[in-house]
């Protein structure tokens, strides 16, 4: 794949939001891979999850290790084959990776939005994405694809713009969050807002970053993305080598430092590393916003909680994929989507991939998972241009 470049589009028309607020003007950052065909029928929109961006596949020139977050899935000859499809990755409003977000100035005041960036929803994001497609001259998506929060966007596409989506691929997702999920999000948010460097969200003006809060938010998130088995396999009860080596006595006699401050177990070291890395690049206000996006998503809520009623509008063909060890978005939640589609006699294929990797599996290589997605997109490709 040749090097890729992010592109920016400015939207001067206001975007009305579910909350009643309005984004008066905004920029969207996006990338494209492959070529749009003559009848503009081969576009595939990839929706990102919590901490990802428009950078789905490929690398940036002169930047090593700049591979897109779904580079194993999207590219020439890959399951979503960019030799066939024109793939679009878009960064959602409110994010911190290029599209208008809390770090940008509010056109009404000229000051940085900070904590005043309006609360956005999955539906708002889909509306913004639809406008991007309008600008690109794409009326109908061959497919909309996403994992986790991205899967929620894919599902919402089929409800908000049913006539504009031929296929929806919903991976490791759910029709709404459980109370347990919302609880995890709340712990993450409290970690951030109680960080002394948060300053009520105005930390840009104070020249600080609530890194402690971000670290803890990421640590708890990370725990929920893995499975118990994977964590045990990778880390178990292993102590850091340094502790064992530095101990004055043989490790079998005094294996612990008996410290509550230091890192002793490998898993602690790993979580702190992940937390530190995250706190370096992610914006705290964005984290607060996006976890709320997750909390709010519930297309059935307007239908008295009846998902079957809610999905009646969906006419797309669906591929739903879940992973057996994903306890954050368990197969049970995917089966709720499948059942609602079956109730409506919609075309749906459901693959429940038996993998040890937990929620993170949707980002990883797995021959069965990628095989199903590849086979599905081959079928989609066979119908192009007809």
């Amino acid at each position, binding site marked *: 794949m040749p090097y890729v470049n992010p592109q920016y589009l400015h939207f001067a028309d206001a975007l009305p939001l579910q909350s009643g607020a309005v984004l008066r003007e905004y920029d969207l950052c996006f990338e494209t891979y492959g070529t749009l065909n003559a009848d503009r029928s081969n576009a595939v929109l990839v929706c990102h999850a919590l901490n990802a961006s428009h950078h789905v596949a490929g690398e940036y020139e002169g930047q090593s290790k700049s591979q897109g977050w779904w580079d194993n899935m999207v590219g020439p000859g890959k399951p979503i084959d960019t030799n066939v499809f024109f793939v679009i990755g878009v960064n959602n409003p409110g994010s911190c990776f290029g599209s208008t977000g809390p770090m940008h100035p509010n056109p009404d005041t000229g000051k940085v939005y900070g904590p005043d960036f309006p609360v956005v929803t999955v539906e708002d994001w889909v509306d913004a994405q639809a406008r991007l497609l309008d600008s690109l001259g794409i009326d109908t998506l061959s497919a909309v694809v996403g994992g986790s929060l991205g899967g929620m966007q894919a599902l919402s596409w089929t409800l908000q713009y049913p006539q504009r989506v031929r296929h929806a691929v919903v991976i490791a997702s759910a029709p709404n969050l459980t109370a347990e999920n919302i609880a995890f999000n709340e712990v993450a948010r409290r970690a951030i807002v109680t960080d002394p460097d948060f300053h009520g969200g105005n930390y840009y003006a104070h020249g600080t970053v609530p890194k402690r809060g971000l670290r803890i938010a990421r640590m708890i998130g990370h725990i929920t993305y893995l499975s118990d088995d994977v964590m045990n396999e990778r880390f178990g009860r292993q102590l850091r080598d340094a502790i064992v080596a530095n101990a004055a006595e043989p490790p079998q006699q005094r294996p612990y430092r008996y410290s509550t401050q230091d890192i002793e177990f490998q898993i602690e070291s790993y979580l702190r590393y992940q937390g530190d890395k995250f706190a370096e690049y992610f914006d705290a206000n964005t984290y607060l916003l996006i976890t709320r996006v997750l909390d709010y998503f519930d297309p059935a809520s307007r239908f008295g909680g009846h998902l079957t009623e809610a999905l009646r509008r969906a006419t797309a063909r669906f591929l739903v994929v879940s992973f057996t060890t994903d306890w954050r978005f368990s197969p049970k939640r995917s089966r709720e989507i499948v059942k609602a589609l079956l109730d409506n006699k919609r075309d749906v294929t*459901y693959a429940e991939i038996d993998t040890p990797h937990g929620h993170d599996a949707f980002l990883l290589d797995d021959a069965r998972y990628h095989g199903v997605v590849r086979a599905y997109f081959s079928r989609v490709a066979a119908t192009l241009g007809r």
Partner: protein
Amino acid sequence: MTSFIDPTQQAIAEWIPPGSRVLDLGCGDGAMLAHLQEARGCSGYGVEIADDNVLECVRRGVQVIQANLDEGLSMFEDASFDVVLQIDTLQHLRNAEVMLRETVRVGKVGIVAHPNFGHWPNRWSVLRGRMPVTPRLPYSWYDTPNIRFGTHADLSILARRCGLHILDSCGIQDGQVVRRFPNLLASTSVYRLSR
């Protein structure tokens, strides 16, 4: 392109009204459903547990739901299919009786086909003191995936016990329908059932 199906499936396909909505329980590689879609204008879904079969279904363009039939059919509403097929699955299931009831709950008609252990070569084998190994039952007793061993006559008794209505039943041998002494003369037993 016509999907290849074996003579037994061919005989069963003849029973399925064109244009039916079909649920194929244990649909395997999806060949039967693909055939029904292409040759008889049917629609519907397969249910399958094995990864490689699910993949093959997707390749064929057959809608497939990956699920374990032993966990039931709660995903499907009552009478939501014209025909529910259960070809060579019942003998693999722990909850065969529950599944038989479920088959006719979600389908207006259930078609159940299973290997007939009453077929004469099987009886002959048992008479000689050995468990049967035949083209229809190619497994040795110690490595068979079949955990239920029933005859054509047995299924009739189970169906009645479940309060099901037997619309029709016959045997199939070498792709031919067997109506005389199917319990003795056919390697496959087929029932058409309703509630």
